[in-house]
Structure formats: C-alpha cells, structure tokens
C-alpha cells in the first residue's frame, strides 16, 4: 500500500471575510481537508507576492489567497488589488516552472463557510495530483537546498 501524498498548503485569509468563513466552517462542524494552514492578514490586499514565494520556498506545495468577494471588501477594494497582483504573480510563477494550480486566489464571504471548505478540498486534490513542489529542484535546479526529513524546528540551529 503506497502512502498518499499529503500536500501542505499555506492559506492567507483576510480577517473580515475568509478568516471568518473558516471560523464558520469550524463552528458548523463542516469537515474538510486539514492540509490548508491558515495565516490571518487584515486584507487580501496585504498579501505581498513575496509571502507566496517565501511559503513555496520554505516547503509549501501550494498557496491559497482568500479574500472577500469583489465589491464586498471591508477596505473598499483591497481584494481587487490582490487580484491584480495575483495575475502578475501567476505569470512570474509560470516562468519559474511552477504549475498554475499551486497558487490560487479564491473569494469567500464571512457567511460562506461551506464554500471555503469546498475550495480547500478542491485545491488540496488539485495540488495532490500535481505532487510535491520540490522548489529546490524545480526552481533552483538542486542548487543548495536540501529537503528536511521531518526535522522539527526545535532541533534546528
């Protein structure tokens, strides 16, 4: 029996909509893939493309950016700015050889726990199908990176 690959996805969730959608999914006991690890930002407009690159470099297999629906942004239109940056970032990632499905931008309002859960499930399966990212080989061509064999940070240094 071969063990199934469990991708690690870092999620950047905006404080007002998608973080609350994830809260609601939990409160409603909606079960979904545990692969997405959320980080709270005040607005999807705060997501610097560097965060995405950093997460991929540090071992994530995918990154999800989640914001309020267009027109519903708590900060008027931060999500639109996130969308613009996302489009540019995608073209850059393509050039680096990172598959399209690894970085996704989704919208979920505070009342859409189930929608967020579905999107996490869908993305988890898509990234699972793509397999591990292996940034050091794929992007750096094996140039200096070694992948840890589940060594906790505690034993580092």
């Amino acid at each position, binding site marked *: 029996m071969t063990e199934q690959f*469990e991708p*690690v996805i*870092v999620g950047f969730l905006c404080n*007002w*909509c998608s*973080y*609350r959608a*994830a*809260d609601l*999914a*939990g*409160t409603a*006991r*909606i*079960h*979904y893939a*545990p*692969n997405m*690890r*959320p*980080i*709270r930002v*005040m*607005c999807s*407009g*705060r*997501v*610097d*493309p560097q*965060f995405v690159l*950093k*997460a991929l470099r*540090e*071992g994530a297999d995918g990154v999800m950016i989640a914001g*309020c629906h267009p*027109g*519903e942004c*708590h*900060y*008027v239109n*931060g999500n639109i*700015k996130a969308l613009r*940056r996302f489009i540019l970032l995608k073209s850059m990632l393509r050039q680096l050889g990172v598959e399209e499905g690894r970085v996704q931008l989704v919208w979920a*309002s*505070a*009342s859409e726990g189930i929608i967020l*859960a579905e999107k996490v499930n869908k993305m988890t399966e898509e990234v699972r199908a793509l397999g591990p990212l292996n940034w*050091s080989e794929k992007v750096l061509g094996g*140039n*200096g*990176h*070694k*992948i*840890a064999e589940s*060594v*906790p*940070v*505690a034993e*580092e*240094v």
Partner: protein
Amino acid sequence: MSEKVNPVGGERVGVYICHCGSNIAKVVDVAGVAEWAGKLPQVEVARDYKFMCSSLGQDLIEEDIKERGLTKVVVASCSPHMHEKTFRTACERGGLNPFMFEMANIREHDSWTTDDEAAATLKAKALTSAAVERVVHHQPLEPLPVEINPNTLVVGGGIAGISAALELANAGHHVYIVEREPSIGGHMAQLDKTFPTLDCSACILTPKMVDVGQHPNITLLTWSEVEKLDGYLGNFTVSVRKKARYVNEEHCTGCGICIEKCPFKVVDEVFEAGLGERKVIYRPFPQAVPKYPVIDKENCVYFLRGKCKACQKFCPTEPNSIDFEQEDQMLTFQVGNVILATGYDLFDVKRIPQYGYGKLANVFTSLEFERMVNAAGPTEGKIMLRDMETSPKSVAIVHCVGSRDENYHKYCSKICCMYSLKFAHLIHERLPDAEVYNCYIDMRTPGKGYEEFYNRLLKEGTHFIRGKVADVTNAARIPEEEGKLIVQVEDTLIGRQRRIPVDMVILSPAMEAKLDSKEVSQLFKMGCDFDGFFVERHPKLDPVATMTEGIFIAGACQGPKDVPDSVSQGAAAAARVAGLINLGTVMMEPIRASINQDLCSGCKICNNMCPYNAIIFHEDRKVSEVLTALCQGCGTCVAACPSGVISGAHFTNEQLFSQIEGILWDVRPVKELVAV
C-alpha cells in the same frame, strides 16, 4: 524546565494549549502538542489546560508572566475573534503590553474540521509553531484614543430609524435623520392594520412621526440622500444632497391649498402602490412629517411647458412659499456614528409570470391590498376588484411569492404568513360572505400572540390549503370557472391537485433588500450579503453592529423583520451609539501603517493605493506620509511599497515571514541556501 540559551534577543515565550473541554482535546493530542512546544528554542514554558478562557486559565498566564519572566504569550485555542481580547487583557494584568500576545486557532480551523487525529495534531503544531515564531517579533503597541462626536446620523426614516432616532434624542444627543422620500414613516405608514393586535398602523406610527418632527434634538432632512461619507468612528463627515422641493420650508405653513388647486394628477406608484392618484404637487399622505409638499418636477406642467403656476397663484403665505428657482442643496456636517435603517423592497411579482400579475387584472400585490383596505386609501377601505366597482365573492391569498423558492430567494421572508392571515381576517370582517383561501407551504407564526391569531383565523372559516401555488389562470375548463381566476395548487394534505375558482388573488411577495443596497454598503464602507442585506458583526451576539466601527444597522435592511423586531433593533443600535457617546473617547486598535520617511523614495505608488486617502505626499520633501487617524490598517500600501519602507503595525513583513517559517516547521529545508 531548564533555562535555555535563547536565540531571539532573550525572548521567553509562554505557550498554552487549550482543551476547550473536549472540543479540541477530542481530536488534537493537546498534551503532546504542549510537550512538543516546550522544546521550541524560544519557549520558556508550555502547558495544556482544560479551559484557558476561564479565570483559572487566565491566572496561569498571569502567574507565569510574573514568576517566570515571560516576555511573550501564545494561546492555542479558539478563533481570535472569540477570545483575543480576553487573553490580551490577561497579559496586561500580568504586566505585559497586550500586543505581546498571539493566538493560534486550533478549534474552528482545526479540531472542528476533521476527525483525523494525526492530521489535526500536526496542524495544531504548525499553527502553534507559527504563532511562536511570529510572537517573538511582536512590538509593544499603544491603542489610539479617538474622540467621539456626540452627533449621530440615522439613514432612513421608517419605523426602525424613527425608533433609533427618538431613543438617542430623548437621551439628549443630537440626531440627523436623512430620508429619501418627502416624508418619514416608511412602509409602516402605508399599512392599514398591524398583526396580530390589529392596531391601526397610522394611529400608532403618526405620534412617533410628530415627535421626530418636533424634537429639539432632531434635524430632519427629508427628500434628501447621503452622497458621501468620509472619516472613521467618532469623526465622520457626511455630505447630503437635499433635493429641491420647490417649496420654501421657512414660509410654508403646510395648509395644503396648493395641492387642492393643482390641476394635474398622476398615478402614485410609491405610496399608493399604483392603485391611486396624487397631485403633481403633493404630500405622500395627510399625516406626512414634515408637512411641506413637494413638486414632482418630471410631471409638473410648469417645468414641462413653462405655464400654469397654479400653486404659486393660490399660495396664501407672504412671501410666497412656492419657489420654482429652488436648487438642490449640498449640506455637510460632522457625526460620530451612523445608524443605517434603509428598509426593504418588495419582491417584483412580475418575475413569476405564471402568477399572472400585470396580465390578469384581478391579481393584486399585498401592498396594493394594504392600500385598498386602508380607510385613507384610494377605495376608502372598500375591497374591490380592479374595475373599482365589484366586491369579490372569493379571494385566494398566495403565500411565499419569491421566498422559500430555489429560483428566487431561498430564505423565508418571515412576515408574509402573518400579514396573509391578517388579510384573511380583514376580508372576513369587510365581506362576511366571501370565501377566503390561504395557500401556504408551511404556516410560520412564531411571535407573541401570533399563533393565537392563526387559531383565531382557523375559527373564522378561512380555507387553509397546504401547497405551493403552481399558477393562476383565467382558462376555464368547466362552466363554474368561467370569468374567474383559477388557482392551481396541489393540496398536499389530501394529496390532490385542486383548481380553485376565485374572483381575486392576492400575492404575498417576499421582503428583499433594497435595489441599491450594494451601492449603499459601498458608500458606508461595510458589507452586504448575496441577497443584498447588510451584514451584522455577529449573527447572534452582535446583530446591530457592522464590521465597520461606528456604522450600525437596524430594521429590515439587515434581513426580513416585522415591526416589533425593527423597533427593538432600532433601539438597540441607539443604545450602542449612546454607549460610545457617553464614553467620549474610545481606544482603537493600533493596527496602522507608517512610512519610514528617511527611506521613502517618493514614488507615490502608495498614494493611490489607499482606499481612505490617508496617505499624503509632501511636495517639499518628496516623501509620503500616512495620516494615522485616517488609516484603517488594511496593509495594501505595505504590500505595494517597492522600497519596502512602509510598515504595517502588528502585521509587519518580519512577523509574517516568521509566521510562514513557523507554519511550515515540518517541511522546511534544513539549512538556508549554501550556494547562491
């Protein structure tokens, strides 16, 4: 636990893993996570505890800060939206700056979303590790004091807005009411009776309207709309367009002679729901507040052809109150808080063509029927068919038109069952011989005295048919159906299709969000849901506040609501505002951006990014600066700055990069780049 050599500036982090009874502990190995966290280099102490939010749990944090010299605290428990404040306060009691705290959400985002214990424990470790890595970079922050302007803006003069305004005004605070229509009163002014008490709607509403009109603490701006709102909690600047009435409010006595003498009539689509007429210079209804009439410019013959001026000729005031030269006025004033009570629209029944509205004359909407049974309405309270002569001998009332329907609105519109029952009662009262059929999906009558009212109707002889009406047609199949409207419905209690011939059909449409609610929500910088209703801060525990500080909501703009609920919500919003006014100064979260002026290159990219125009450019020094009072802390400029010199307090790049490293503790490359 032994003393450790600490790599990050001598930080000593305390980590607390909450069991939340069994909510977390059932799935996550909390003791294992705590033990593991204790080995992290920056961590001084890691414990697990049954309920961290209990006073004993908080005491643990306090004691450890004092006794073990903690400099930072992490609690892994529920969502920060639940208890961040609780634990920040506990840190403060222990002598730490409240911002030296970070929360890991291992309940809503973890234990409640999976049964897989290994995966949940791994995720809990990742979230805890992320919080630890982040918290060591936390800086002490001081909350920003904001003064609250004691004036309040209430948008919408329906019963919810009236209720909110009167509560505040009676408490001694000044209120501006802005109402789009020429009079306050809203939908309640159009109704005849209110369920279940059958109080005359106008009789209970008009005294409140008069109170509003005469109150020394209320500035009433009708026939006006808010065009712009700038600022933040405590300090909003409102711009209002006061549309030209063409009647001078200073001179007009409200005698009504101009209305009497105006020679032209038009169909009143608003107040009389298209069932009656009004003059071109008009007051929507006799008890309107304020009493001044309005000239309907689009239909006024003087404005169209330059002749008439009958109103001006007959106006008895000195100087003359009619002013054809009047122009829209722009008013600007300051308020501290805003209560939105913008009300609802009724579902357009033409969207369901099989119910025949607009094609079959004797299909009416509920609002048309309200006006018809109203003694002050176009038929003076007589129930008549569209020919305005014949009384119906049989009436069918169709519930759930556009609500509880996959094709239109999925939600239950809450009030339709009750007002449909009220209609049945009023028909029995006015036309004792008429047969009344109520076609309902489910009878929903929760509320004080509501079920009793339903029982009363059961005894009054109404025919209740449980089933959703398929269509309304005039195509007769048998002689008895000739000239009638036939309601086709499956009676689900007897399991049979029925064709009910009636003279009149009343459709009970759903309450829906105002057509322009999306634009309004953007104007006030707060959210609305898919249906267009405004989103409250918390659906159960905070139903009147919104996600935007200083903006409150009341009444049917938040969701379908009856009169008592709207009144309570209006009063509740007023109480929240009064609380803020009494405080005088509130503390705001110091999550704000700031620009390092020494490093700013003056590219101005951030200037246009800011949705609040909070970033100004100093032409003399060629650098940008964030105005802290206007900044809302979204961080868009931080992410946009090409020089990386804008810092978002509490969400700095350093903090987020460390959080990313922490959250990926198990998959990170062992070493940093060797080559390159």
